[in-house]
């Protein structure tokens, strides 16, 4: 790669010729502050917080988008630069509702940190009368534009990564604000609830709907038995809420914390994921035999399912009819575990901890009730909400002992464990499907081809004399490309795994929020994903879903055959086409 030499604060640095000033400075340990910049997603140089002096340049330049060139001299810490950044921050604050002490993002706010770092110790141009501008029309998202800094990161991820683009910058000048077309509520738009906008928001303009109060109420209600289960991706991210390094696996401490919060049983959604493998694997084998509705497309990601329903309804027949692991967990709790405890399913309160905001929407969907009139899952908390509950309870997370899940529904295999990263569902399914089709024990269970952070991954396997072509895709823009190619006949597969969020659930919209700077220089998807693969090797001696003793027991004693009558009633659902412009009169 061609390199150039530049001087930053009189220190010479050699960097790739394609680097920006921001990237070159990082090489010598200088963090140029950013507020709007997100690598490859939002490089618009709009916020002016990253300005630096370049020798010979007419004015200050935005380091995030300014390319280096040979012999360039850059100064990142002159009086002029400091004054300009401070003035910019003061002007942003002039129009920002500063209820920092009671703000959800207090101490995890990029604007707050910038103000501290730049010594903004007073507010000269304050509008102290800003009212909250709350928009909360969905199950998952709260927008408060009184805290918006117009960085447009949310708009950029919604369009570029997720191909949904239900929000944009409306109006002009001082009236500019982020919103949906025709000022519709988000609930009237074809939003997929993925929450990717939340994890890039530098302030508290975008937050999840907080359901902790519901859960506290249930925990305090003596008539309720409250069970909780955690999604695979939560255990490799929750530690970030307590300052632990990205990718720390805190499974044992997480279980201990949940037990101390008062949940009656602490279970694992991984176990339910093993059931998903059984059902989806059976479905795949059935479709391979009949040749109908191929490729089968996974249905674990509610953001993806909603995208399919709204934007690609022609692929609904291809969707697996399986419920997601979360919904399978809830269903088995309500039909099986309630009976085992000899209680009314209505008195069994099911909580899941999810890396996902779309899960809050999923529990309210139709056809998600294994027991008629009873929701499979009663409340969904994101990883962040659980982090807050742990802090509320005064639990010193890092000092907690490592505990095990409750055995009744807490034994899982490596198959369910890797569901949390892009490629995991496909790999887990292949481990079981290959054994079922060949009738032989599979020795090598690692399907490396479907691992990693690439947006679209492909592989073909010879299974029992038959070629099975698979694709794994994450991020909805990548998904759109793949679906368009399938429609155009350019590619052809037997099975496709889709995860709405880039990198899969480890990078879900409910995960702990890392600053833009951290995201720009660390691949969260890769770090958290690797932690799952390593965790599987370290903690899951069984690696195939069908080897799970709970799976074997429940199919034998309660459910019957995978894909059978009970399985269909309890563990399957159906998708339905929904309008792309739900707010439009002609669609109503």
């Amino acid at each position, binding site marked *: 790669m061609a390199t150039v030499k530049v001087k930053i604060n009189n220190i010479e640095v050699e960097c790739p010729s394609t680097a920006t000033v921001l990237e070159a400075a990082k090489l010598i340990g200088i963090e140029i502050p950013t507020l709007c910049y997100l690598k490859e997603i939002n490089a618009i140089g709009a916020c002016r917080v990253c300005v630096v002096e370049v020798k010979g340049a007419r004015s200050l330049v935005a380091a995030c988008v300014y390319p280096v060139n040979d012999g360039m001299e850059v100064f990142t810490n002159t009086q002029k630069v400091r004054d300009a950044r401070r003035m910019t921050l003061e002007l942003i604050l002039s129009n920002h509702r500063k209820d920092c002490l009671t703000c959800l993002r207090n101490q995890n706010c990029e604007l707050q940190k910038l103000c501290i770092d730049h010594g903004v110790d007073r507010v000269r141009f304050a509008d102290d009368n800003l009212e909250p501008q709350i928009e909360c029309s969905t199950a998952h998202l709260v927008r408060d534009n009184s805290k918006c800094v117009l960085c447009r990161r949310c708009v950029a991820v919604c369009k570029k990564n997720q191909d949904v*683009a239900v929000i944009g910058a409306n109006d002009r000048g001082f009236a500019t604000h982020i919103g949906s*077309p025709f000022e519709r509520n988000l609930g009237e738009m074809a939003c997929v609830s993925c929450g990717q906008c939340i994890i890039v928001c530098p302030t508290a303009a975008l937050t999840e709907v907080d359901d902790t109060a519901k859960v506290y109420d249930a925990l305090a209600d003596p008539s309720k038995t409250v069970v909780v289960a955690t999604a695979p991706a939560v255990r490799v991210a929750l530690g970030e809420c307590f300052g632990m390094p990205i990718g720390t696996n805190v499974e044992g401490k997480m279980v201990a914390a949940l037990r101390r919060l008062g949940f009656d049983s602490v279970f694992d959604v991984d176990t339910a994921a093993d059931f998903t493998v059984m059902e989806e694997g059976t479905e795949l084998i059935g479709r391979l035999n009949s040749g109908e509705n191929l490729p089968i497309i996974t249905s674990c990601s509610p953001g993806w399912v909603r995208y399919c329903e709204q934007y690609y309804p022609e692929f609904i027949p291809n969707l697996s009819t399986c419920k997601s692991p979360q919904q399978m967990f809830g269903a088995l709790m309500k039909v099986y575990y309630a009976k085992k405890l000899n209680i009314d399913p209505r008195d069994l309160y099911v909580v899941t901890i999810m890396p996902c905001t779309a899960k809050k929407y999923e529990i309210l969907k139709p056809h998600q009730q294994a027991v008629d009139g009873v929701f499979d899952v009663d409340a969904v908390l994101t990883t962040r909400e659980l982090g807050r509950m742990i802090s509320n309870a005064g639990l010193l997370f890092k000092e907690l002992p490592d505990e095990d899940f409750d055995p009744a529904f807490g034994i899982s295999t490596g198959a369910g464990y890797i569901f949390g990263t892009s490629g995991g569902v496909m790999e887990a399914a292949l481990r079981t499907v290959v054994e079922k089709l060949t009738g032989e024990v599979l020795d090598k269970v690692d399907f490396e081809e479907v691992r990693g952070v690439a947006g679209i991954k492909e592989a073909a396997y010879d299974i029992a004399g038959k070629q099975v072509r698979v694709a794994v895709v994450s991020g909805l823009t990548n998904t759109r490309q793949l679906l368009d190619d399938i429609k155009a006949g350019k590619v052809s597969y037997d099975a496709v795994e889709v995860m709405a969020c880039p990198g899969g659930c480890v990078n879900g919209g409910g995960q702990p929020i890392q600053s833009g700077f951290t995201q720009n220089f660390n691949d969260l998807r890769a770090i958290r994903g690797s932690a799952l693969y390593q965790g599987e090797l370290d903690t899951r001696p069984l690696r195939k879903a069908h080897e799970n003793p709970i799976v074997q027991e429940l199919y034998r004693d309660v459910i019957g055959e995978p894909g059978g009558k009970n399985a269909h009633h309890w563990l399957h659902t159906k998708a339905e086409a929904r309008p792309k412009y739900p707010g439009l009169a002609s669609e109503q």
Partner: protein
Amino acid sequence: MPNTKTTVPFAGTKEQEAQLLEIIAAHKGQAGASMPVLQAAQSLYGYLPEEVQVMIAEELDIPLSEIYGIVSFYSQFTLNPKGKINIAVCMGTACYVRGAGDILDDIAKHTCCQSGSITDDRTVSLEATRCIGACGLAPVLTINDDVYGKLDRGEIEPVIDTYLEKEKGNRA
């Protein structure tokens, strides 16, 4: 300037739709196609209702949020059709300092038509415009093609009433 969502039901014809599709086809694939298409669509329909913006978004494969962002950014675009009586109050500096803001508010109250919108019966539309270049007449406004300048508060309401009477007569 507020550009409020229309309350008038969409009344586009099949012919207009065919013309719009032709316009879009002529620009499809060009970089920056949205501006010329929106301009042509506005001259075709007189305004840019949601139905038209959705058609443009779908045909050009540009998200509706982006199309609406453009429409709400530029003051040349309007979300509301013009009424039979279109009142445009100049908000240029000279007119503004001579009280155009109050006059605009008065007219909104008098006609029950918010600035940037149209009455449900499509009779009156009201807009706040940029400088129309008649600063010597400040504060100035136009009603359809007629210019009224050097206005004091209270003077324009009787004038508007004559337009309303005439419109009522036309309908009867």
